[in-house]
C-alpha cells in the first residue's frame, strides 16, 4: 500500500490499537466460560470494529455497527442469557475436552493460514488491479461528494432496491417466526 | 364440413383450445367440488362423473374437426400456432400437427370419454380429484403430440407423469404405491437424460443462430453436431422414449403399473401413454439424429430389442395367471412391432407402425376396459377364477372375442392391417427380424385364445360365476364405438393411412437421405 500520504502516524497508531483491542477481546470472548462475560467481550470486539470502520471511511457503517450490533443484537443475547438464567455451574462447564480444543486450534490456524495464503501472492494482485488502486487512492483523497450517507444510499436504493425490499420481507418473517417460536404454547403439549 | 371449419377459422384456435379446455374443465370441477361440499358423497360422485364425461365429450367433438380440416396432401405443420412464452430463453408456445400427431390426438380425445365411462361406477372416493387429474393428463398427452418447441415438449412430457402417478397411487389396487413409484422413477430416469439433451440442443441452436431458441424446426434444419455428440444425444432421447414404449428390457414397470392402475388408468396408459414413446422416436429421435439412429450398430441393437420384445412379451404373456398382466405383456409384444416398423424404415413399415400404434390403442384399451368390467363384477383378475362364463354373459363374451381377435391380428380387424404392413415393409430391409417377428402371430393366438378359453369357454364350474351379470347399456354403448373402429380400420383403413402417409414418407426419405450423407448435414427439405 503506497497510500502513506494520508496516513499520519496517529492514524496508523489508532488503527493498530483498535485492531489489537478487537483481537484481544475476541480471544477473551472465546475463552470466557460465563456467557455474560463472553457477551461483554464480544461487545468490546464490536466497538473496536466500529472504530476500524470509522477509520476506513465507513462512518455510516460504524454508526450502524454500534446501533444494530451492540445496541440491538447483543442486548437481545444478554436478555436471553438472563431469561434462561444461564449462570448455573453445570452450564458453565461447556468447553470441550483438551484434545478437541487443540484440534480446534489447529483447524483455526489452518483456516487462517489458508486465508492468508489466498490473500498473499498473486491472489491479491488479481484482486486489486493497479489502476483500481490508483483510482481508489484518488477517490479517498478527494472529499466525498454527497456526504457520508450518499455513496451508500444511492446503490442501496437504486441497484439493490429489490434485494433491500426483500430483506424487509425477511425481517418481517423473522419477527413473525420469533413471535411464534417464542410464544408459550397453551393449547398443545 | 371443410368450408364450415374454415369459416370459423378452426385451424387458428383449435390446438390451443384443446390444451386449454381441460384446464377450464378442471377449474369447473373444482368449483363443483366447492359448491357440492355439503352434499352426500353418493350424490357428489354421481354428479361429477356426468360433468367429467360431458366435458370429455365436448373435447372429443371439437377435436373431431381436425379430421376434416387436416389436409393430407400438405407438407408443413397444420393448425400451427406460435406464441412467445419465455423470451429470454427463446422458448415459445409453438404447436402444430402432422398426420401422425393428428391420429394420435384423435385417439386421445376419443378414448378419454370411453375411459371415463369405463370408470363410471368404480371410482367413488375423491371423485373430483380423480377427474381433475384425468383432465390434466389430457393436457399433457395432447401437449406432447402438438409441441413444436423442445422445452414445451419436455414440460408436457413431465406434466403427463404426475397425474398418472397419482391416479395409480391413489385409486389403484393393492400394491398401488409400489407400482406408482416404480412407474414414476422409471419414466423420470429416462426423461431427465432427455432434458439434458434438450438443453444441449438448445444451446447448440443458440450458438448456431445467435438467438436462443428451442424450436424443433430450427434445430432440425440448422444444428449440426459431430457424430459422437449425436450418438450421445440420440441415446438420451432414445432412453426416455424406450422406457415409455416400453422396449425390452425397460418394460418391467408396465405390468405393475397396468395391473395396479384403475381401469381408466390402464386404458389411458395402454391406449395413449405408451404411444408417446413411439411418437417420440418418430418425431424427435429419428429426424433429429438420423445418423445416430441409422448407425448400423445402433439400428441393429434397437431392432434386436424390438424383436426380442415381440417374442419375449408374447411368451411371457402366455404364462400369466393374471389377465390384466397378460394384456400388459401383450402390449410389450405389440409395441415391439411398432419399434420394428419404425426402425426398419420403409414407407410401408412406418405406416404400419403408426397403424399398430392406433390399433393397439383401440384394442388393448378395449381389453383393459373389458377386464375392468369383469373385475367390477367378480373382484378378481385371475384367469383360473373364471371359466365358461360365456353362458352367463354372452354379450361380454362376444365382445371379448372380437377384441381379442383384433389384438391377435386376425384379418378383417384393424390388428391385421398394422402388423401386416409392419412385417411386409420390414422384410425389405430387415428380413431376419421380420421373419422372427412373424412368429408372434402364432404366440399371440396361443396366449389370447388360451386365456379366452379359460375365461369364457370350458365348463361353468365355479358357482360364484353363475351370478355374473352381463354388460349393461352403458358398457355396451362404450364398446360399440370401439368395435366399430376395429372393423372399420380393418376393412377400410385407407382414410387413416392416407392421413399419415405424407408424414411417414417424409420421415423415411429424410432419414434415409441425411443418414446416407455425411452425418452433419441436415437438409432443409425436411419440413
Amino acid at each position, binding site marked *: 500500500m503506497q497510500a502513506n500520504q494520508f496516513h499520519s502516524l496517529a492514524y496508523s497508531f489508532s488503527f493498530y490499537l483498535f485492531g489489537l483491542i478487537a483481537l484481544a477481546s475476541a480471544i477473551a470472548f472465546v475463552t470466557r466460560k460465563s456467557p455474560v462475560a463472553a457477551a461483554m467481550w464480544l461487545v468490546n470486539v464490536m466497538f473496536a470494529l466500529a472504530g476500524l470502520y470509522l477509520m476506513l471511511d465507513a462512518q455510516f457503517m460504524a454508526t450502524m455497527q454500534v446501533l444494530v450490533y451492540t445496541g440491538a443484537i447483543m442486548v437481545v443475547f444478554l436478555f436471553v442469557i438472563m431469561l434462561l438464567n444461564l449462570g448455573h455451574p453445570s452450564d458453565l462447564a461447556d468447553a470441550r475436552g483438551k484434545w478437541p480444543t487443540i484440534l480446534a486450534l489447529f483447524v483455526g490456524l*489452518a483456516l487462517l493460514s489458508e486465508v492468508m495464503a489466498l490473500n498473499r501472492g498473486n491472489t491479491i494482485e488479481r484482486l486489486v488491479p493497479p489502476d483500481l488502486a490508483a483510482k481508489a487512492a484518488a477517490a479517498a483523497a478527494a472529499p466525498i461528494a454527497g456526504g457520508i450517507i450518499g455513496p451508500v444510499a444511492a446503490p442501496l436504493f437504486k441497484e439493490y432496491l429489490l434485494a433491500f425490499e426483500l430483506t424487509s420481507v425477511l425481517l418481517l418473517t423473522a419477527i413473525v417466526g420469533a413471535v411464534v417460536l417464542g410464544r408459550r404454547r397453551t393449547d398443545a403439549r | 364440413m371443410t368450408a364450415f371449419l374454415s369459416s370459423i377459422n378452426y385451424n387458428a384456435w383449435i390446438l390451443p383450445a384443446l390444451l386449454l379446455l381441460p384446464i377450464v374443465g378442471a377449474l369447473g370441477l373444482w368449483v363443483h367440488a366447492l359448491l357440492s361440499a355439503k352434499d352426500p358423497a353418493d350424490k357428489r360422485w354421481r354428479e361429477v362423473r356426468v360433468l367429467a364425461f360431458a366435458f370429455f365429450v365436448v373435447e372429443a367433438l371439437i377435436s373431431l374437426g381436425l379430421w376434416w380440416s387436416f389436409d393430407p396432401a400438405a407438407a408443413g405443420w397444420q393448425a400451427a400456432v406460435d406464441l412467445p412464452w419465455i423470451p429470454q430463453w427463446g422458448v415459445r408456445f409453438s404447436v402444430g400437427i402432422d398426420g401422425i400427431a393428428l391420429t394420435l390426438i384423435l385417439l386421445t380425445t376419443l378414448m378419454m370419454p370411453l375411459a371415463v365411462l369405463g370408470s363410471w361406477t368404480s371410482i367413488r372416493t375423491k371423485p373430483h380429484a380423480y377427474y381433475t387429474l384425468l383432465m390434466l393428463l389430457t393436457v399433457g398427452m395432447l401437449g406432447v403430440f402438438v409441441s413444436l418447441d423442445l422445452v414445451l415438449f419436455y414440460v408436457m412430457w413431465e406434466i403427463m407423469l404426475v397425474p398418472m402417478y397419482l391416479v395409480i397411487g391413489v385409486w389403484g389396487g393393492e400394491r398401488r404405491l409400489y407400482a406408482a413409484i416404480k412407474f414414476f422413477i422409471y419414466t423420470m430416469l429416462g426423461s431427465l437424460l432427455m432434458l439434458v439433451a434438450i438443453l444441449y440442443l438448445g444451446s447448440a441452436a443458440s450458438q448456431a443462430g445467435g438467438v436462443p431458441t428451442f424450436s424443433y424446426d430450427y434445430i432440425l434444419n440448422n444444428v449440426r453436431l459431430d457424430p459422437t455428440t449425436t450418438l450421445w444425444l440420440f441415446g438420451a432421447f432414445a432412453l426416455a422414449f424406450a422406457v415409455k414404449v416400453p422396449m425390452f428390457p425397460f418394460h418391467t414397470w408396465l405390468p405393475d403399473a397396468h395391473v395396479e392402475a384403475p381401469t381408466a388408468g390402464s386404458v389411458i396408459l395402454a391406449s395413449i401413454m405408451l404411444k408417446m414413446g413411439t411418437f417420440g422416436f418418430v418425431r424427435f429421435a429419428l429426424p433429429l439424429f438420423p445418423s445416430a439412429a441409422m448407425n448400423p450398430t445402433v439400428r441393429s441393437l434397437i431392432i434386436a430389442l424390438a424383436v426380442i420384445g415381440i417374442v419375449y412379451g408374447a411368451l*411371457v404373456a402366455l404364462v400369466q395367471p393374471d389377465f390384466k398382466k397378460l394384456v400388459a405383456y401383450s402390449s410389450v409384444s405389440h409395441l415391439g412391432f411398432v419399434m420394428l416398423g419404425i426402425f426398419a424404415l420403409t414407407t*410401408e413399415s412406418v405406416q404400419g407402425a403408426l397403424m399398430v400404434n392406433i390399433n393397439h390403442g383401440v384394442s388393448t384399451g378395449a381389453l383393459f376396459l373389458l377386464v375392468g368390467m369383469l373385475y367390477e363384477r367378480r373382484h378378481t383378475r385371475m384367469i383360473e377364477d373364471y371359466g365358461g362364463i360365456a*353362458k352367463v354373459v354372452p*354379450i361380454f363374451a362376444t365382445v371379448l372375442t372380437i377384441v381379442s381377435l383384433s389384438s391377435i391380428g386376425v384379418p*378383417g380387424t384393424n390388428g391385421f392391417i398394422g402388423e401386416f404392413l409392419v412385417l411386409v415393409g420390414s422384410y425389405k430391409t430387415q428380413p431376419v427380424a421380420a421373419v422372427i417377428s412373424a412368429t408372434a402371430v402364432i404366440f399371440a393366438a396361443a396366449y389370447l385364445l388360451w386365456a379366452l378359453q379359460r375365461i369364457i369357454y370350458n365348463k361353468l364350474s365355479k358357482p360364484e360365476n353363475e*351370478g355374473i351379470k352381463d354388460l349393461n347399456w*352403458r358398457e355396451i354403448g362404450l364398446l360399440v364405438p370401439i368395435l366399430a373402429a376395429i372393423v372399420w380400420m380393418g376393412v377400410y383403413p385407407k382414410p387413416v393411412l392416407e392421413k399419415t402417409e405424407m408424414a411417414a414418407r417424409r420421415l423415411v426419405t429424410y432419414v434415409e437421405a441425411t443418414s446416407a450423407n455425411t452425418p452433419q448435414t441436415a437438409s432443409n427439405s425436411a419440413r
Partner: protein
Amino acid sequence: MNPALIPEGAHPLAATVARFVWLLPLLPLLGFLINGTLAMLGAAKVGPADPSADHGHGHGDAHAQDDAHGHGVNGHGAHDDHHPPPRHKFAGIVSLIGPGVLLAAFGLAVACFLAMRGVEMEHPYVVTLFQWMPVGDLHLDASLLLDPLSMTMVLVVTGVGMLIHVFSVGYMQDDPGYPRYFAYLNLFVFFMLTLVLGASYPLLFVGWEGVGLCSYLLIGFWFSEKANADAGKKAFIVNRIGDFGFLVAMFLMFANLGTLDIGRVAAKAAELPFGGVVITAMALFLFLGCTGKSAQIPLHVWLPDAMAGPTPVSALIHAATMVTAGVYLVARASGIFSMAPVAQLTVASVGALTALVAATIGLKQWDIKKVLAYSTVSQLGYMFVGVGVGAYTAGIFHLVTHAFFKALLFLGSGSVIFAMHAAYHHTHNHDDAQDMRNMGGLKQYMPITFYLMWIATLAIAGIPLFSGFFSKDEILASVFARVSHSTLAESSLLGIPGSTVLLIVYGIGLAVALLTAIYMTRMMLYTFHGPNRTGEGERPHLTEAPWVMTGPLVVLGVLAAIGGWINVPELLGAIGPVGGLEHFLEPVVGQASLRTTLGAPPHVAHQTELLLVGAAIAIAITGIAIAVWRLKPAALVPKKEAPASTGISRVLENKYFVDEGYDAAFVQPTVSVSRAVLWKGFDAGIIDGLFVNGSALLARAFGWLGSQLQTGQVGTYAWVLLIGVITLLGAFTLR
C-alpha cells in the same frame, strides 16, 4: 396372362351378370349380420346399470340358460329332460335366412358360370371395390378376381355349402345356439368366398384366416366341453403356424417381386431364375401355409380333433371347402410353384406321405367321424400329390369330386349320429353315439342313408364310373406321366432324383388307394352291416332322418356318382365330353402345367395307360374284398366292453402318438420355459429383481449409510463442515 393389362370395364364379363360378383361374398355376410344380431338378441340379458352392486343374486337366471350351449347332438352332453327343448324363438327366420343367402349366392354363381361359358376367358375378370391398403409401393385394392379356377371353387363352396346349410336346418333344429350356428356358418361362407375370389394374396389371406377363425368358432361351438374348446384352439393355433409360412411367402413376394397382386406376382415370378432359392423359398413357405390349412404333415394334427364341432360343420369346413384351400392356393400360385421343381417335389412327397400316414391311422379308428377325418387328410394328401406334380387340373378335379363324396359321407354320418343320439336320448343312455362299436346293422333302420353312403364309399374307393375314380386316376396318371420328361424328373429332392421320388409317390398313391378302400369298407361294414349293437331299448327309436336332411344327401349322392363327368379322360371319351374341367381351367393353370412338362402335354402310351387304370381298379376292388373278407362285424362288441388294443393297433389308434410327441416337444417346453425361465427367472428375477429393485435397494443402502452420519450433534456437523471448507480452500491454495 397378366390380368392388370385388362381394364375392368373392357373385360367381356363386365357386360354380364358377373359384374355383380361382389354380391357373392356380400350375401353370406348379410346373412351373418342378421343371424348374428338375432343370436345376440336371443341370448343376451343386458346387465344392471351398476354392475358391482347386488352381486351374488341371479342364480336362477344362470340356470335358465344353463343348457344354452352345452346341448347338442354329439352325444357328449348330459341330457336329463326327455322332451326336446322348444326350438329357438328365432328359428323360423334363421332357417329362412341362413340357407337362403346361400341359395341366392349359388344362383348368382351359376349365373356367372353361364355367363363365363359364353365368353372367351383368356384373362381373369378383376373387379376392384375400393382401395384397401395404399401404402408406399404397396397398392393393395379390395378386388375380386373371377376366373375359371375361382368360378369352380365358388360353385363348390356355394353349392355344397347350400346343401349343408339345408341339412343343418334339420340337424341343429333343437340346439339353443341355432342362430349363432347359422351366423358362424354364413360368416364362414363369406370368408371362404373372399378366399377364393381375392385378387391379391393379402386379400386371399383375409379369407384364409377368416375361415380359420370360423373353423375355430364352429369347432368350439359347444364350448362348455373343454375338449371342444381345446380342439378349436388347437385348430386355430396350428393353422396360425401355417399362416406364418403364408406371411413369410408374402414378404418374399413383396421384397422380390414388388407386388402382392395374384396376376402380377405370377407374371413377375416367371422372370425370376428358374428353380432359384428365392422362388423355391417362396413356394415352400406358401406350402407351409397349405400344410396348416389343409392338415398335411407335420401340421395335420388339428383336423381329427376338429371333429368336435357339429357334423355339418365337419362336412362343410373340414371336408369339402376350407381344408381344400391349400390345394386351391397351390393351384392359384401355380405360376410360382411351376418355377420351383424342388418345392413341387416337396409338395408331392408331403402329400403322399400324409395320404399314407392318415390312411393307416384311418384303419384303426372307431369314431365314425374320426375315420372320415383321417380319410379327409389322406385325400387331401392325394390332391397335393396332384397339384404338386403340376397336374393342377387333376388336383382341383379331385377337390371337386371329394367335396361331393366327402360331404355326403360326413352328412351321412351326421344323419347316423343324429339317429343314434336321438335313440340314446330317449333312453337316457350316455354311450358314445359316434363310436362304430355301438352301431352296426343300421341299414334296415336308415336305408336312404345307407345306400347313399355306399355310393360315396365306392366313389372314394375309386370304383369305375363313380366320381372319385376319375379324379384319383387322373392324379395317379399325372404322377406317372411326369416320371420322365418333366422339370420334376430332372431335379432332385434331398439328393434323390426327381423321377425316383415320383415313382415312390406313385407307389404310395396306389397303396393309399388300397388302404382307402379297406378302411372305408370297414366303416360301412361296422356301421350298417352285421348285427345291431345299439341296445334293446334304443333299437325302436332308430329312424331315418327327416327329409330336410336326407334331401341334401340325395343331391350329393347324385353328384358323387356322376361328378366325374366334368372331366372325363380320353380313354373313356365314349361316356362324355373329354376333359371339360381341363379346358375350363386351361387359361389359369395351363401355362404352369406346360412349364412342368417342358412345354408338351404329358403323354403316356395308350397301352401303359390302360394298364395303369386296370391296376387302379383292381386295387380298389381288392381293398373292398379284403375288408369284406377279413372283417367280421358280428364279432364286434360295444365300446364299453371292448378290450384295450395292443401293438401296432394301439399305435395306429393313437395316431402314432404325434399329439403326445408335439406336446412333449413343443407345447410343454414352451410353456414351462416361458414360465420358469423367461417370466419368473428373467423378467421377475433378473430385470425386475436385480436391476430395477436392485438399484432401488442400492440407493436405499447408500441412504442408510448416509443416515448413519446424522448424529444429531450440531457440533459434529460444524466440524464436518469446517473440514470440508478447509479442504476446499486448501485445494484452492495449493493449486
